[in-house]
């Protein structure tokens, strides 16, 4: 069997104030899989994501990204891990902080050591993938929300990650932007972990879903069978929109 893109074993975590967020999470994601990470507010989804690239140090258990151990104490390896796990944050204004789109997309690869023509090529390629190449010299605040989210995806793609992690990718998008983003995500040849409450969106993009609640994985299986299990959804404060039939 190939090395999984992401391998989480017995991951537990408590915040410094004693509030425990994760109680032993086990999760294995194969290369090229698209997985929805579902769960109600406060389930520990964001905490889990913050472990994937070593922003939160692993205190108990282990995480491997493409076979490499996430160890936030080892500076060199953490740099490599952060280039492998690309996180797209919920608010694009948090992610896009450089004066122009191109400079922002260049930020990650620059930190990875790319320069000049090579850097430029990577930036153009990433913007092309999300259909935002013509906006490369625009300041981010001149773009619409949907465009900014696409640029946020590009900033991460430019780092050529092993896994693309998206935090609530469909939030605040109008229906057309939502569909455009879905088309882009499906067109990428990359492992995707999508954190969301938007069950139809999960169904549209991910073949597999995982429910995280109370700091543990309570369900893991094909999205279709999870979303048709009404009792399971109800037990985890998840609901399909009224009238939505799979």
């Amino acid at each position, binding site marked *: 069997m190939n090395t999984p893109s992401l391998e989480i074993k017995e991951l537990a975590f408590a915040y410094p104030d004693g509030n425990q967020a994760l109680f032993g999470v086990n999760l294995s994601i194969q290369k090229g899989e698209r997985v929805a990470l579902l769960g109600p507010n406060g389930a520990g989804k964001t905490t889990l994501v*913050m472990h994937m*690239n070593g*922003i939160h140090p692993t205190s108990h258990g282990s995480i491997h990204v493409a076979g490499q151990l996430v160890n936030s104490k080892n500076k060199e390896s953490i*740099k490599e891990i*952060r*280039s492998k*796990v*690309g*996180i797209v*944050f919920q*608010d694009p*204004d*948090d*992610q*896009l*902080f*450089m*004066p*122009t789109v191109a*400079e922002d997309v*260049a*930020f*990650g690869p*620059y*930190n*990875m050591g790319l320069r000049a023509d090579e850097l430029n090529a990577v930036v153009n390629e990433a913007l092309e993938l999300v259909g935002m190449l013509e906006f490369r010299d625009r*300041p*981010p*605040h001149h773009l619409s929300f949907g465009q900014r989210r696409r640029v946020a995806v590009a*900033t*991460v793609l430019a*780092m050529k990650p092993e896994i693309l992690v998206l935090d609530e990718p469909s939030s605040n998008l109008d229906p057309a932007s939502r569909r455009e983003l879905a088309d882009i995500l499906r067109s990428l040849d990359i492992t995707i972990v999508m954190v969301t409450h938007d069950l139809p969106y999960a169904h549209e993009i991910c073949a597999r879903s995982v429910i995280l609640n109370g700091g543990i994985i309570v369900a893991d299986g094909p999205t279709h069978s999870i979303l048709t299990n009404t009792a399971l959804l109800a037990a985890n404060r998840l609901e399909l929109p009224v009238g939505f039939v799979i």
Partner: protein
Amino acid sequence: MGERLYLHRHSLVHSLPSHLKIIAAIAFILIVVSTPITQWGAFIAYFLWLLMVVFIAKIPFPLLFKRALIEIPFIFFAILMPFFGTGEKIQVGPFDLYREGLIAGSGIVAKGTLGVMTAIILSTSTTAREILRGLERLRLPVLMVQIASFMLRYVNVVNDEMERMKVARESRGFEATGVKHWKVLATAAGALFIRSYERGERVHLSMLSRGYEGVLPHEEQIEHKATVWLKAMMYPIVAATIFIAQLLIGKM
């Protein structure tokens, strides 16, 4: 906000590299400030030269004068100076003014106006981003450039947030009319501060996630030809010529 000062035109002044423009502007201001106000002929010459540069930069004169109004609160006291003081008095029109105050006051107004107008030429012909790049090339500490650059990026975001909070307040029937509403406004300012602070943390997190290690990308140094330097430095050079001329005339 942020880029609203910039006026897009194709002119010699617009095309000059920003760091040279910054040097030229500062040099011009230093020369103007070191000229004694009693040499009023020199100030007329400075002013005419400045207007010529404004013309070359294709900046509309009404825009220049409108933007120059920003200095009024700063020169307010300078305008009052001739009315309050001691010593010799002179008659100017209907007013009985103090000589010392008049000289000092008009000095502040003249030098201030030339300085402000120089700043207007710079900000109207250079994007805010380019000014920051210029400062970076002039070896201003990276930390300061970074802070200014983040400010430039987020001033709109914070402004929108403030605007939304204002609309939300007004939607619930609140209107700030007097001192008794300051408490509400202060609370809102506090909330805005906390939200901005938290955003700062999230931005930092997203920077760390993309491998940030304390250095923002910066461009490589570009060497400029002597002619470009000369063109940019014409602004203070002409002023320096006027300065020397007034010195010589003063000696005669």
